[in-house]
């Protein structure tokens, strides 16, 4: 029997992230008690940066390893870079936030790293079990992270809700995988596709069931309507830094797995899922945007807005062409910058005990903290798709892909939704700039780490809006192996 070839270099970034996760745990145990543990965050940052530099040489290598279960194609690498950027910014904002809320102990950072590991596996898996492993590693870490504020009822509720519903959704996903295996006898994505193509299994009820279950399972992770019910409660209750991590990282990883599985394993079923996802996309955009209008809690508002953004991305998924897929990659990266940026502003404007989270609390902030308010405005306008910011370019690519694929009505519904979204993003700026504060926000503490995160997010948002060419051509090259 020949032993499978093991190329550890291929999974070096994952190994580093895992190793640093354990290192953080160990250092936390052996460190003297009682003092502030800022170095744990620094240690995590170092891990992420090293993993990042081990990821870069893999660009363009396109290798697969572990008997074809794991790949380093451009698609995986692009997602890994996005995920590492998200992890980096999340750790940075946590260094201010987690310390303030008293949850900055080892497990917190370790779990962020483990979740990152799971996300990276999801992006790189070409075998359903690897993808599932990644998904579970990520989800379980996030379940715990969501409940970190254990004295806060909302946080505990958030974790419990996410866990129960998440477990249920995972069940669906696993069921889908099982049916897929049952019908085709393999878990390799490519083999599934070729088996279906050769045996002409398009009417196979088992496969159709599996398609439905997979849609539900992934639909839950990316928070698409009607599998979005958990999102607002979980996002509201979880620690703000973790909410930011979920809204960007979990979503990116969910989309990477969704695209990989559907485009690689189930391309034959495209006509079937196109019409379903068309409906889901429209419902997701519309429900997200319309409910966001009536939200008073900023975290809930951003939760609904993140639902809407999943809808825009699904528009490109429906388009299903090259420009759509590269558009998704571009979008998720731009979204990471602007959304993490917005959450950073929320954190900087907040106080211990999750204070100042109502939209109305922001009244008069505009002239009191001009730079912070201006940054928040930039992020919100970017999410609304106003040029020259990253969010505009991202939407432009996505909608142009949909037009290219001749989904005109979908595009029109998309842009109209985008116009609706302007209303609630503007509402925050209205409060910040146009109204006098009723209750002064005072005593904000700006620790350096989140401020750095804010600046990085600003740079990212502007860079992707004004000089999008580099990232875009990178995204276009990245999908070469996939499509």
């Amino acid at each position, binding site marked *: 029997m020949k032993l499978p070839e093991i190329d550890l270099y291929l999974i070096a970034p994952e190994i580093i992230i895992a190793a640093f996760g354990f290192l953080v745990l160990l250092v936390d145990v052996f460190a003297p008690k009682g003092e502030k543990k800022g170095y744990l965050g620094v240690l995590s940052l170092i891990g992420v940066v090293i993993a990042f530099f081990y990821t870069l040489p893999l660009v363009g290598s396109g290798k697969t390893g572990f008997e074809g279960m794991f790949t380093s194609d451009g698609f995986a690498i692009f997602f890994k870079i996005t995920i590492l950027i998200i992890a980096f910014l999340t750790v940075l904002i946590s260094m201010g936030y987690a310390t303030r809320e008293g949850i900055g102990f080892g497990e917190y950072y370790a779990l962020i790293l483990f979740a990152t590991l799971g996300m990276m596996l999801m992006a790189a898996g070409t075998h359903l079990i690897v993808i599932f492993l990644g998904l579970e590693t990520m989800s379980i870490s996030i379940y715990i992270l969501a409940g970190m504020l254990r004295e806060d009822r909302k946080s505990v509720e958030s974790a419990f809700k996410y866990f129960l519903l998440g477990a249920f959704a995972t069940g669906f996903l696993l069921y889908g995988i099982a049916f897929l295996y049952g019908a085709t006898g393999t878990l390799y994505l490519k083999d599934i596709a070729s088996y279906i193509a050769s045996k002409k299994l398009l009417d196979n009820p088992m496969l159709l069931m599996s398609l439905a279950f997979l849609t539900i399972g992934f639909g839950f992770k990316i928070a698409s309507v009607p599998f979005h019910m958990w999102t607002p409660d979980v996002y509201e209750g979880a620690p703000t830094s973790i909410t930011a991590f979920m809204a960007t990282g979990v979503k990116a990883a969910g989309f990477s797995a969704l695209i990989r599985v559907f485009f690689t394993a189930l391309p034959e079923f495209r006509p079937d899922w196109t019409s379903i996802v068309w409906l889901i996309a429209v419902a997701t955009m519309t429900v997200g945007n319309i409910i966001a209008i009536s939200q008073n809690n900023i975290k809930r508002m951003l939760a609904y807005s993140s639902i809407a953004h999943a809808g825009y991305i699904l528009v490109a998924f429906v388009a299903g062409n090259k420009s759509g897929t590269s558009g998704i990659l571009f979008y998720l990266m731009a979204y990471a910058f602007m959304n993490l940026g917005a959450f950073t502003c929320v954190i900087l404007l907040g106080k211990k005990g999750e204070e100042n989270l109502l939209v109305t609390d922001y009244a008069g902030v505009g002239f009191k903290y001009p730079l912070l308010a201006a940054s928040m405005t930039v992020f919100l306008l970017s999410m609304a798709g106003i040029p020259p910011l990253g969010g505009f370019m991202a939407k432009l690519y996505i909608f142009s892909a949909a037009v*290219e694929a001749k989904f005109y009505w979908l595009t029109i519904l998309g842009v109209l939704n985008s*116009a609706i979204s302007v209303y609630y993003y503007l509402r925050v700026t209205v409060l910040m700039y146009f109204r006098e504060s009723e209750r002064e926000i005072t005593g904000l503490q700006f620790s350096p780490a989140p401020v750095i995160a804010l600046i990085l997010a600003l740079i990212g948002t502007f860079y992707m809006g004004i000089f999008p060419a580099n990232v875009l051509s990178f995204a276009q090259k990245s999908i070469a192996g996939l499509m």
Partner: protein
Amino acid sequence: MDILGIPILSFLIFFPLAGAIILLFIKKEETIRWTTLAIALVEFVASLPLFFKFDSATAAMQFLEDWWWVEAYGISYKIGIDGISLLLVLLATFLTVLCVLCSWTAITFRVKEYMISFLFLETGMIGALVALDLILFYVFWEVMLIPMYLLIGVWGNPQRRIYAAIKFFLFTMAGSVLMLVAILVLYFINLKATGRSTFDVLELYKLGIPMGTQHWLFGAFALAFAIKVPMFPFHTWLPDAHTEAPTAGSVILAGVLLKMGTYGFIRFAIPLFPNAALDLMPLISILALIGIIYGALVSMMQPDLKRLVAFSSVSHLGYVMLGMFALNTQGVQGSIYQMLNHGISTGSLFLIVGMIYERRHTRMISDFGGISKVMPVFAVFFMIVTLSSIGLPGTNGFVGEFLILLGAFQANIVYGVLAAAGVILGAAYMLWMFQRVMFGKITHPKNEGLKDLNAREVITLIPMVALIFLMGIYPKLFFNKMDASVEKFLKDFRGKVEMKADLPAPKAVAEVKK
């Protein structure tokens, strides 16, 4: 032509932005005012060479700059001006100076943020006027929204400013996102026909688009522009925005921002989709006529001076649209001329209303009466501007309106008759308003002690009045600049209409970009 090594148009776009960044570091309010004035003046002076170096003999784009922005998608940074945009660019730089002047004492708080917004707005305006790439145009078009939104929302009237600001933003946004879809559809039609990905509007002009598609695309563009103009029935945001905005905001809104709509028609919607434009000509002309009459009638009944001027804008812009869609030389020339006129006359009217508002803190016509006795200098300026708005021969308004009427009569005699009737209504509401405000006895004790205009205010108004007469008496100076471009616009239009435009576009020779 370069300024400081930067091509002139790029300089004009980005200089105000650079100025805005400089303002960030200045603390004293007085210094901020002077610095902004200096920046606006430099910008204006820097834009003058455009006028003098402009080659009137050619209809081609001049001062052209062409770079790739996102090469993979064919988005370029392509800017240039022809006879149509030249005068509008100058109007924008000119009005900005006056706006800074008229905000001198009117803006009492957050002066820095105000001036930054204004300079930011100038960048957006110039950019949108010179952009020759559809995406670039769209970017600047949207960029203009944010500062204007802030100007209305922060420095507007306390009562309804927020409502007006949001309404302004949402109306414009709703129209423009559909235009974005149309831009993308156009891009892919061109890609399929020529195999080249480009958003360059000069390239896209050459495209022949099937009739059905043309109607949809024209509809999307026309909606975005009609909201901005604003044409009846999309005008409802305008009175609110104008009334609530600070004086300078109203001036720039009337002077330049509304022109973006009419400019959009003449630069993009009509040349790109000529057949659809021709088919929809009656509809648009009728809407324009409704705008003319309706705007005039509503103006007549306004108790609020600023609202009156705002509704008169609806009426004036109706003329602009009517002239443009006459689609003959006189009509189009008159239309462009009237765009400038409206910027100057209505801009001045808003300045004047602002001046009296600063003194009395009311804009109700019934609170005034007999003002000419206490403010004789003011009365002279007000009279000249009122007459210009009515279109008295010798003032700029006459030239524009006359040409538009000529064009309209040629296109359809009924349109001409109705439009001419609108002129009478225009005279009626303006003169009646003037009579109630300026003549008669002083009925209100507060009006007795009003001070006449100070030197700064006179300096603000003199250039306006000078232009009113210059454009009224020697219009040739300006028509010279636009003649060739207008001729080309009409020639291309007729050519494409006759071709029925169903033929595929000729394969364009690929240009090599820097």
